[in-house]
């Protein structure tokens, strides 16, 4: 009996390959793209002000719009970054329609059962305050801040996604940080 040969890890297909497969009619490729990016998108949307109750719907709508427009995606930035900017537009439209304010209720945050209750409360309060202050920032500053601080993107990537220059993205980020620090005293 020959020893079993080590199975080489099959590299997961790139986003570009999945997009091409979806365009060729492969529904599972679309499903895989959704699985891959849903969490990051949901975090970004929650950070930019999506009400938690509507988060599922906004996430779905973002993916639908992205797949409809995927032919226009030229790889100027990563698919995820492109997706996040579409999410920002979906949320803007939703806000315009509903005129509802973003709420991630503090009490809801405290319902979590992980970790020390005091630390959890402090963290939830900081997040709640940050979320509130973020809503007061201009949209571009808010999105640049979240793309940089929450999603960890480089300025080049942010600039490509938002159609601006890396220098301008850096300025937006610093304005946002300055404003947030002032408001979070």
């Amino acid at each position: 009996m020959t020893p079993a040969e080590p199975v080489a890890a099959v590299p997961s297909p790139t986003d570009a390959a999945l997009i091409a497969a979806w365009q060729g009619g492969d529904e599972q490729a679309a499903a895989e793209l959704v699985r891959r990016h849903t969490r990051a998108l949901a975090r970004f949307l929650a950070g930019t002000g999506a009400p938690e109750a509507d988060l599922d719907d906004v996430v779905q709508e973002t993916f639908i719009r992205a797949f409809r427009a995927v032919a226009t995606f030229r790889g100027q930035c990563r698919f995820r970054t492109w997706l996040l900017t579409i999410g920002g537009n979906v949320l803007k439209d939703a806000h315009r329609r509903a005129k509802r304010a973003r709420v991630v209720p503090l009490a809801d945050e405290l319902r979590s059962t992980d970790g020390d209750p005091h630390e959890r409360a402090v963290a939830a309060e900081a997040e709640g305050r940050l979320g509130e202050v973020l809503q007061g920032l201009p949209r571009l500053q808010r999105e640049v801040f979240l793309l940089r601080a929450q999603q960890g993107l480089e300025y080049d990537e942010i600039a490509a996604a938002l159609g601006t220059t890396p220098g301008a993205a850096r300025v937006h980020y610093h304005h946002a940080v300055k404003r947030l620090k002032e408001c979070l005293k």
Partner: protein
Amino acid sequence: MNDDGTLDDAGLRQVARRLGARAADRVDVERTAQAVVARLREERHEPSSREAWLWTSPVWLKIAAALVIVAGAGVVARAVRHAPSGLAAPVETVDLGDLSVAELRELLQSVEQPGAAEPVSWLDVGLEDLSPAELRTLLASLEPET
């Protein structure tokens, strides 16, 4: 955290990284994937049914009928507006009983004279053009009635 209680850059980034994480964790990824795929599938099959709806919907039939009516009314209104003015002008009627004797005489004379029906500008007519009878009629009409 700084001594004055403000968040430093690292603290701000740390809070930002956590922002929305709990809400995002509650999103059911697999359910989202299936829902998105279902909607995309629906949209791919939608155009044919949308076309069918377009042409069979009673709403569209009603709109088409309304458009025909509006267009028809427009054509009629345009035709009336461009009709010869003589036809459209209101006809003024005069009761002969309201006329004085002199006016009646004048009217009779104008009917008897050939070409009297043709419109004549007051600029074209002078007193010298009038006959003695017409002059008498004119003078009579200018005299105050007693």
